[in-house]
């Protein structure tokens, strides 16, 4: 008999995502599906709005990394007003970069300290009641405090550059609407010694240590869990270095061969297509040259460190070299190493924040540029979770006629399905009863990808799950709900 197992991150009832697993007659997992049950209709309802509203409207699709949407839309509208990246005033460019690195820093810190650190500090088998940020606070109060202060630092950088911590308005088509005074820069650089840029660099390095210690003691799990070969895609700068604000698109395969050779992202439609499947509102992007079956790729911290040749800040570069050495310079295909990569990027972001704050261009007076108007704009940025594409067309009346978005979590759609499949295969096979271990395995696999849906849902605690085993007629054979004590 063929059975279906349904795993519902609790959020399913709240309308976010759920997993079904199909079990064949031998009790083996034959397929898995991660259903995204959200649909907003953004592509249509944004039509008819003036293009300059895009940077403030679109970010309201996701309050977890709104700066990414704000800036991707701003970059697209830069093209529409004829500024592009070429003409953007230096002050605007640096302010936006600072905003973006602030966002990386806070988002990655949130992910590590609030969501993942309980696993690393207590182990994945620890009681659920302990495995959240309050549990960490009870036993490792310094570390929990660090996490909270790191997020706060990033959020304050965002507030200083964008005007608000969430859904700011700093970036405008062709520029920025404010600069940063030398006093403000000084406060972030040399203010309260427990809350300045160099302290953040130190804490970011400490977080890498926490991961490496865990890795040393749990090598089999960290290296083997939900590991699978895949392609990887990210933006790199002109010299192949890591850049999250601007650059060209590169993809490598599992062996490290370049399969997308530093293309101009404005040509993305030539290279990337999206498949639609009936069982999910989220589309499935792939590289057209490799086709739907083989063309899917991962994005995010792991993919970025697999694609780039170097990191342009000294301490992160040192950490990057160790990361690369571990796989002999080949791409790293281990899902759990996403955490390692994310922390190296956290360090990179902290170093970049310090470097940018020292730059007098942040206090410059020329804030925007206007050139010859165009009727189409494409903006691409690396969001904390991976490559983010915004594409708009407008009419003579300046109103939007077409909007297309490919967000990070969408690029990772197939990889997350793949990771869930591997995790399920390893834990579920041959069983008919759902165990706590199964819930954990799926949760940890999805969490490694930091999709907005899961990141958000356990921002303050555990990802509660419900697993159902169903027979072919939909009769429920077994149910288990993750208990929170």
């Amino acid at each position: 008999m063929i059975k279906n197992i349904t795993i519902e991150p609790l959020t399913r009832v709240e309308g976010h995502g759920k997993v079904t697993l199909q079990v064949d007659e031998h009790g083996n997992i034959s397929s898995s599906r991660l259903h995204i049950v959200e649909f907003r209709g953004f592509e249509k309802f944004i039509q008819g709005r003036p293009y300059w509203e895009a940077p403030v409207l679109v970010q309201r699709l996701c309050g977890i990394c709104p700066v990414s949407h704000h800036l991707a839309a701003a970059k697209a509208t830069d093209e529409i007003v004829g500024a592009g990246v070429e003409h953007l005033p230096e002050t605007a460019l640096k302010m936006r970069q600072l905003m973006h690195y602030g966002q990386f820093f806070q988002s990655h810190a949130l992910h590590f300290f609030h969501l993942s650190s309980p696993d690393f500090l207590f182990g994945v088998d620890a009681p659920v009641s302990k495995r959240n940020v309050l549990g960490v606070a009870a036993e490792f109060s310094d570390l929990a405090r660090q996490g909270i202060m790191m997020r706060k630092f990033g959020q304050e950088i965002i507030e200083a550059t964008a005007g608000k911590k969430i859904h700011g308005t700093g970036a405008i088509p062709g520029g920025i609407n404010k600069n940063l005074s030398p006093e403000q820069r000084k406060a972030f650089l040399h203010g309260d010694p427990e809350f300045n840029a160099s302290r953040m660099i130190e804490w970011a390095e400490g977080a890498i240590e926490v991961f490496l210690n865990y890795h040393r003691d749990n090598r089999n799990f960290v290296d083997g869990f939900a590991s699978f070969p895949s392609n990887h895609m990210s933006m790199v700068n002109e010299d192949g270095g890591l850049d999250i604000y601007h650059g060209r698109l590169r993809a490598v395969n599992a062996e490290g061969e370049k399969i997308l050779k530093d293309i101009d992202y404005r040509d993305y439609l030539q290279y990337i297509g999206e498949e639609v499947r009936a069982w999910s509102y989220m589309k499935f992007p792939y590289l057209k040259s490799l086709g739907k079956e083989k063309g899917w790729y991962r994005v995010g911290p792991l993919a970025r460190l697999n694609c780039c040749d170097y990191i342009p800040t000294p301490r992160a570069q040192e950490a990057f070299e160790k990361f690369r050495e571990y796989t002999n310079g080949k791409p790293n295909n281990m899902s759990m190493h996403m955490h390692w990569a994310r922390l190296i990027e956290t360090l990179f972001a902290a170093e970049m924040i310090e470097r940018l704050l020292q730059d007098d261009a942040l206090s410059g007076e020329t804030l925007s540029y206007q050139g010859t108007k165009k009727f189409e704009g494409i903006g691409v940025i690396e969001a904390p979770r991976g490559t983010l594409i915004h594409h708009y067309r407008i009419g003579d009346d300046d109103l939007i006629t077409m909007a297309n978005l490919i967000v990070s979590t969408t690029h990772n759609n197939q990889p997350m399905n793949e990771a869930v499949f591997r995790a399920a295969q390893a834990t579920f096979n041959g069983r008919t009863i759902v165990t706590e271990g199964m819930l954990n395995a799926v949760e940890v696999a999805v969490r490694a990808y930091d999709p907005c849906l899961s990141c958000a849902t356990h921002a303050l605690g555990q990802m509660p799950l419900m697993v159902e085993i169903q027979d072919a007629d939909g009769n429920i054979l077994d149910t288990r709900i993750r208990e929170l004590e």
Partner: protein
Amino acid sequence: MKNSSHIKSKPVIATTSLAGCFGCHMSLLDIDERILQLAELVEFDKSPINDIKKISRPVDFGLIEGGCCNSENVEVLRHFRDNCKYLVSVGECAMMGGLPAMRNQLSIRECLEEAYLNSPSVQGCNEEGIIPSDDELPILLNKVYPCHEIVKIDYFIPGCPPRADLLWDVLTSLILGTSPKDQYSVFKYD
């Protein structure tokens, strides 16, 4: 819950995100260090994102982010109403529908066709013209509804998102039974 029976008077808080962007939840995290203080004041194990199907004891304050755009949102909202003494609409989306309600002028079919058939990156990639539709996907409502059009709401906290200081002020007032300070500087409608 067994571990809390000795602290009878701690209010229980539950939160949920319906058709929202999670920005309101993130704004709650922006109370920073005070999150530890909040954990002292309230029971958090019925935590934000706990399985609502399991609300098994009375909740004092239910915080709702987002309006209702599909059948599940409505179910969850009703479930919260049934189990919470006070229900609070947090943010523009819960209060007025917010950005998702921009689709209210359009038919849902137009929106689906634009995303899955007309999008430039789908051209040549969706030969069968698939529009997602599956038993596992909830039914989309014809329009996006603010929460108070579905159930009674007791309090409203405006903002997109409400500022962290405002959330802190209102929450602690509700918990301690005092009146909010009504700080003009953090009370905003955007």
